[in-house]
C-alpha cells in the first residue's frame, strides 16, 4: 500500500500527463506525414528529454511510439503509403475501403483496433515483465552473454530485404561501438587521438544521424514526388460492427503480444500473421484484399498488440525488441537507469509509474486518433519543402545539446551520410543501431565471464539457463537461415 501511494505520487503529475498527450500527438502527426517515421520522431525527441524526470521522459517517448504506430495506418489507408512497415498490411484492405468511399470507417476501425490491442498488450507487459525480471535475477555474466547472443540474432529480422547487408551493417555498428577507452585496460581504441572520441561515440548524434538526416538528404537528392490527397469520407464505424470485429481484434492482439515479447520478430510479422489468421477463419475470406473491414481490424490489432509487449524484454532483461525500443533503452541510460531485473529491485516505484503512464497513453490515443482523422488533411498537407529544413534544425540543435559541441554536429551529419548511403544501397540502418547497442553488452559480459572463470571456457555451459539460451540462439539462427533461403527462392521465381 505504501508502494502504491509512492507510485501514484510519482505518476500523478501534470508533466507526465502532458508528456503522454504530447508524445501521442507528435507520434500520430509524424506517423501521418508521408515519409516521416515514428523511429525518426522518437530519435528527434530524445534531446528534449534531457531536463525531464526519467518517468516523464520515457512516457514521452513511449507516447510517440504508440502514436506513430497508429499514425502510420492513416497514410496507409488514405494514400496507400504506409507510415511504417507494420502498416503495410493495413493498406491491403484499408486503401480499397478508402477508394470505395469508406475511408472514415477504415480509419475508425484502425483506431479502435489499435487501442484495444494496445490495452491488451499493456496488461501483458504489466503481468509478464516483473515475472520475467524475477527469473532474470538468477542470471550471471555467462547467462547474459548467451542472452545477448540470442538478442543479436534479431539483426536478421530487422535487416530488411538483404540479410547479408544487414549483417554487414551490424558489424559496422559493433566496430563503431568499440571506439573510446577500453573498459578493462583503459587503453585507447580507434580514437585516433581525438579527445572527443575517448568517451565513446555519442548515442544521440548517431541515432539522429542514422534515422532523421537520410530523409532530409534523400529529399534534396530526388525529384519531388507528386502530392496525393484523399478526403476522409463516408460513414463511421457503428457499435454493432465493432462488436462483430471484437473476436478478430482480441485474436490479433494476442498474436501481437506473443510475437512482440520475442525480441526481433517485430510488428510487421505480427500484422501479417494476424491478417492471414483472420482471413483463414473469416466467413468473408473472399472479400479480403478488396476492402474488408475485418482485414483492417486484424492487421491493426496484430500491429499494435506488439507495442506494449516489446517493452517486456526491454524492461525485464534490458534487451531491445526492435529499433524504437533500442532508442528507448538509450533514453533509460541517458537518465542513469539500466533496464533489467535490477531496475525492478531498485526502482520498482518508477517501473509501476511507467506502467500507469503506458495504460493512460492508450486512452489518450482514442482522443488524439479521432482528432487526427478529422484534421488529417491539415497534417498531411504540410509541404516537405518547409517541413524538412525545420526537421534538420531540430536534428542540429538536438545533436549539439548532448555535449554542447559542434563535433557532435559533424558526427551526426557523418552518420547521416552513412545512413543515406545505406538507404541508397538497400542496407537497413536498424542492424547498425542494434550492433552499436548490443556490441558493448556482448563484450562486457564476455570479459566478466572470463575474469570470473580465470579463462576457463566451460563456464559458458555451466547450467540449464545457459543451455536454454544456446538452444534459442541456434534455433533462431536456423529459422533465420531457412527464412533467408525461402525468400531467395521466392525472389528467384519472381
Amino acid at each position: 500500500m505504501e508502494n502504491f501511494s509512492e507510485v501514484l505520487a510519482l505518476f500523478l503529475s501534470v508533466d507526465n500527463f502532458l508528456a503522454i498527450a504530447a508524445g501521442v500527438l507528435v507520434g500520430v502527426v509524424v506517423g501521418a506525414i508521408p515519409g516521416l517515421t515514428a523511429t525518426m520522431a522518437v530519435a528527434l525527441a530524445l534531446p528534449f528529454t534531457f531536463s525531464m524526470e526519467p518517468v516523464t521522459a520515457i512516457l514521452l517517448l513511449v507516447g510517440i511510439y504508440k502514436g506513430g504506430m497508429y499514425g502510420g495506418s492513416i497514410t496507409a489507408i488514405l494514400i496507400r503509403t504506409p507510415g511504417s512497415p507494420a502498416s503495410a498490411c493495413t493498406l491491403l484492405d484499408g486503401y480499397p475501403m478508402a477508394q470505395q468511399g469508406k475511408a472514415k470507417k477504415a480509419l475508425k476501425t484502425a483506431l479502435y483496433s489499435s487501442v484495444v490491442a494496445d490495452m491488451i498488450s499493456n496488461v501483458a507487459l504489466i503481468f509478464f515483465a516483473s515475472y520475467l525480471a524475477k527469473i532474470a535475477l538468477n542470471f550471471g555474466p555467462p547467462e547474459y552473454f548467451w542472452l545477448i547472443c540470442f538478442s543479436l540474432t534479431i539483426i536478421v529480422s530487422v535487416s530488411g530485404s538483404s540479410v547479408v547487408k544487414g549483417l554487414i551493417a551490424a558489424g559496422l555498428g559493433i566496430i563503431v561501438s568499440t571506439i573510446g577507452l577500453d573498459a578493462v585496460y583503459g587503453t585507447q581504441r580507434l580514437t585516433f587521438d581525438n579527445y572527443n572520441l575517448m568517451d565513446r561515440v555519442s548515442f544521440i548524434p548517431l541515432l539522429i544521424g542514422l534515422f532523421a538526416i537520410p530523409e532530409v538528404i534523400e529529399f534534396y537528392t530526388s525529384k519531388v514526388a507528386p502530392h496525393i490527397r484523399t478526403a476522409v469520407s463516408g460513414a463511421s464505424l457503428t457499435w454493432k460492427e465493432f462488436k462483430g470485429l471484437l473476436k478478430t481484434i482480441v485474436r490479433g492482439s494476442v498474436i501481437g503480444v506473443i510475437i512482440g515479447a520475442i525480441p526481433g520478430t517485430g510488428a510487421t510479422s505480427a500484422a501479417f500473421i494476424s491478417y492471414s489468421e483472420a482471413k483463414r477463419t473469416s466467413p468473408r475470406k473472399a472479400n479480403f484484399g478488396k476492402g474488408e473491414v475485418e482485414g483492417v481490424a486484424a492487421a491493426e490489432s496484430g500491429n499494435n498488440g506488439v507495442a506494449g509487449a516489446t517493452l517486456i524484454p526491454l524492461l525485464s532483461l534490458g534487451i531491445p525488441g526492435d529499433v524504437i525500443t533500442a532508442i528507448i533503452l538509450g533514453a533509460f541510460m541517458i537518465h542513469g537507469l539500466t533496464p533489467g531485473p535490477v531496475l525492478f529491485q531498485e526502482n520498482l516505484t518508477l517501473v509501476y509509474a511507467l506502467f500507469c503512464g503506458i495504460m493512460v497513453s492508450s486512452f489518450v490515443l482514442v482522443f488524439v486518433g479521432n482528432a487526427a482523422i478529422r484534421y488529417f488533411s491539415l497534417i498531411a498537407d504540410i509541404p516537405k519543402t518547409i517541413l524538412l529544413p525545420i526537421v534538420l534544425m531540430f536534428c542540429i540543435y538536438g545533436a549539439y545539446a548532448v555535449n554542447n559541441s559542434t563535433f557532435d554536429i559533424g558526427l551526426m551529419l557523418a552518420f547521416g551520410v552513412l545512413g543515406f548511403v545505406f538507404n541508397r544501397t538497400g542496407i537497413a540502418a536498424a542492424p547498425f543501431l542494434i550492433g552499436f547497442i548490443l556490441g558493448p553488452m556482448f563484450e562486457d559480459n564476455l570479459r566478466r565471464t572470463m575474469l570470473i572463470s580465470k579463462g576457463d571456457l566451460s563456464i559458458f555451459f555451466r547450467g540449464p539457463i545457459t543451455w536454454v539460451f544456446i538452444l534459442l540462439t541456434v534455433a533462431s539462427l536456423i529459422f533465420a537461415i531457412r527464412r533467408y533461403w525461402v525468400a531467395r527462392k521466392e525472389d528467384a521465381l519472381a
Partner: protein
Amino acid sequence: MEKSELQFAAASESHYGRCNPNSILGGTFSILALGFLFYVIPAFIEIPAYMQHPLLSPRFLPQLAGWLVLALSLLLMIDGLIKPPKRSETDEFRRGVPIMRQVLMVAAGIVYVLFFEELGAIGSGVLASVLLFLASGLRTIWVYALAIIFPAVVTLLFIYVLNVPLPPGTLWESLSLI
C-alpha cells in the same frame, strides 16, 4: 528483332550489369575491412603488456566484427557478380535532380558544422533554412519569413522551456563589443 533479343533487352533494363551496386558495395567494404584489420587495428588499438587471455584483448571485438564484415562483403560481391540485382522504380526519382539543389543542401550542412557557434543557433538556423528554401525553389516571400521565425522560436524553446543551452553566437558578441 528476334524474340531472344527482346528478352535480353527487357532483362538488361530491369537488372543491373556486372558492375552493379551490390558488387561495388561488396568490393568497397572488402577493401575497407582489409584496411581496418591489417592497418587500423594494429596502429590504433594498443595491446596491454599484462593481458590475461586473448578473449580479454581490446582488439578481440573489433577484429571479430572486422572479419565478419570482410567475409560478408566478399559474399555480397560474389553474389552481385553472379546474380545482379534488379533495378528499382525509385531509381527514376533519383535521375535528373538539379545540381544546384544538392549544392545548396551541402552548403546548409556546412553552415551548421562550421558556423554554428560563430553565428549562433538562430543565425545559422536562419541562414541554413534560407539556403534549403532556395534549394526547393520556393518563391513566395512569406515562406522566407518562416526561415526567420522558426529558428528563433525553436531556439527559445530549447533554451527557456527545455533548459538546453544553445550558442548565442560569438560573432554577434564580438560585434557588440566593437
